[in-house]
């Protein structure tokens, strides 16, 4: 993908492929290409829509990467670094017990 600059030359726009897996779904992983500055929150919500799940009073869905709970406010670029593909797992975080 590219955009036109004023001088008329094309400048490549970086997109990062995000993939989110969730084991208890008949659907395959959620995949999208997003701008680096997109937040983890936007990816999480899109993945939850794909898997048809929503947060509840006693639990919330979070994205993990490398086992780490990734905060909503982080950007995709912060997680991906220089990589063009970043994989997440959608986990149901249960707070009761």
């Amino acid at each position, binding site marked *: 993908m590219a955009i036109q600059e004023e001088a008329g030359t094309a400048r490549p726009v970086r997109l990062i492929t995000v993939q989110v897996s969730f*084991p208890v*779904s008949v659907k395959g992983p959620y995949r999208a290409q997003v701008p680096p500055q997109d937040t983890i929150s936007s990816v999480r919500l899109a993945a939850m829509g794909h898997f048809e799940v929503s947060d509840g009073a*006693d639990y919330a869905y979070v994205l993990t990467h490398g*086992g780490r709970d990734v905060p909503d406010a982080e950007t995709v670029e912060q997680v991906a670094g220089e990589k063009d593909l970043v994989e997440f*797992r959608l*986990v149901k975080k249960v707070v009761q*017990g």
Partner: protein
Amino acid sequence: MADQETLLNLAADEAAVAAFLVGCGGRLVRDEADPAAYWLAVRPGSATHETYYVKVTWSVYPGQAPSVKFADGIGGPVTSTRAWPVIPGYRPTSFDICKPFTAEGFALHQEWQAGPDAWPTEGNPFLWVVEMLQYDLDNSYAGRAA
């Protein structure tokens, strides 16, 4: 003893569980006596020198949540409080996890049988349980129980 359908369903899903655990520095071992029981070796992300052993026993798969117990080692007894990690909802003195992904949790909370906490039967619930265990170890771990 679990029925043949359960064993076939477990066989179909266990490879993904084993691969996930290897990626986290752990491993999956099927119990020698009970083919519907598995042993996990798992490590908290913040304390990789600590290894915990978990016995996951299925009665009906994927229809019901498994029994989940911590043990001193693979094949060991599941009655040691020291075998348990300190994590909210994990109860070393009761030898259970009070969350809606274990048979023990559902037995304690009948209200989880329906609604958003109901046991999921689609996809790979075995992997889902193991991911939840690893998530708790990576993000809520506070040491070994005394």
